[in-house]
């Protein structure tokens, strides 16, 4: 229950406070969100599997976001930023889909 409240508070804070993001960081926001989504879906699935672990969740979230942003940053420096963004989105997207399917199996037994 507390985590869901945290999520809601975060969304409301982000919409209300409307913090301005430095221009240099803006390209990494969408990728960071996709990486965060991957961590969240992984956590939900682990919870259904009964192997959820707070430490693993927090570490996987932070590392996911940082590594995804880093890959895109490196790609930008090397001139393949768009392609690497696509690669990150594809891999994370597949994982999100897989985890969402597992969650669905848990919820609906189908």
């Amino acid at each position, binding site marked *: 229950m507390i985590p869901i409240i945290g999520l809601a508070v975060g*969304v409301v804070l982000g919409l209300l406070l409307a913090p301005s993001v430095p221009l240099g960081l803006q390209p990494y926001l969408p990728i960071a969100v996709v990486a965060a989504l991957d961590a969240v879906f992984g956590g939900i699935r682990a919870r259904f599997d009964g*192997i959820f672990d707070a430490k693993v969740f*927090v*570490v996987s979230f932070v590392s996911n976001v940082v590594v995804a942003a880093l890959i895109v940053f490196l790609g930008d420096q090397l001139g393949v930023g768009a392609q690497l963004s696509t690669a990150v989105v594809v891999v994370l997207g597949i994982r999100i889909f897989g985890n969402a399917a597992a969650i669905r199996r848990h919820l609906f037994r189908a």
Partner: protein
Amino acid sequence: MSAPAPGRQRSLGASLLDQVLAETLDPAYAQAAATRAQRTPGDGVPPGGTGWFGRSRGQLLVALTLLVVGLLAAITYREAAAGAQGREVARQSLREDIGVESEVTDGLVTQLEQLTGEVTRAREQALAASAVGQRALDQLAEAELAAAISAVSGPGLRVTLGNAAPSADSDPVGGSQEVSGPGVVQDGDLQLVVNALWASGAEAISINGQRLAATTPIRQAGKAILVDSRPVTSPYEVSAIGDPDSLANRFVLTPEASTVAELTADYGVVFNYAEVDDLDLPAGTAAELEFAGPLDPAGAAAGPGTGLGASTGVGTDPDPTPDGG
């Protein structure tokens, strides 16, 4: 995902894909669970938390992380929405700028017409008093007619040239209604028609209400065709005043007309013409002479009209579009 058969070499790409598809859950969860299962019997650590991560502390951390997730998502959403909004705002302000500047231009044109009218009236008042002045006025009217800076009317030919209709199999969803490629009328096509009309004996020509004077350009700027530096759009109506008996016949027989007719056959360009009994053509803009002056000022004043034949000077000019192409 079935594991690859032992001994059979999988390609790197396939094994990579297998791994991505099979391992959707971070293996660290399973490891942590295994560690916990080992410890639980002896340590008495409550299930759901590892050693130094107390259960409530862990929940708090998860909540904090999710708060960051929500914050991140909301900020990203706001940025994306603001970006789209900003583009729309910029486009809207550009559109308004265009409208404002167009109004300014229209106002200036109206002012110019007004002032020109005043000048003309003042000149007429000054010259109409004397017989010499009256004669000069007549000559001036003739010259203005020849230079296409006074409105004229008469019988003639109306040639319509238009872009081809969009093809039936063009994409109605993603594609625009605009025709592209060979079905679009080019400035050269209009020039062909205009030249053919001049050569057929036309005395005055206008395109979509833009009168053609001796040096009026017909040019292409991007997708738009400019006549006298003002944009005209398809369908292009070329109105020409000339001998009603011969203009149409001579026009049809010109090589230019058959070239344009071929465009119709090949690319579907709209091309037709009709004889009209009464055409009204507006006045054109005069070419400003900045450097050229009369060869002999005294002679020009004493024996005017020699070089300014009213009906022939413009009518036989074969190329009224020196800037074209």
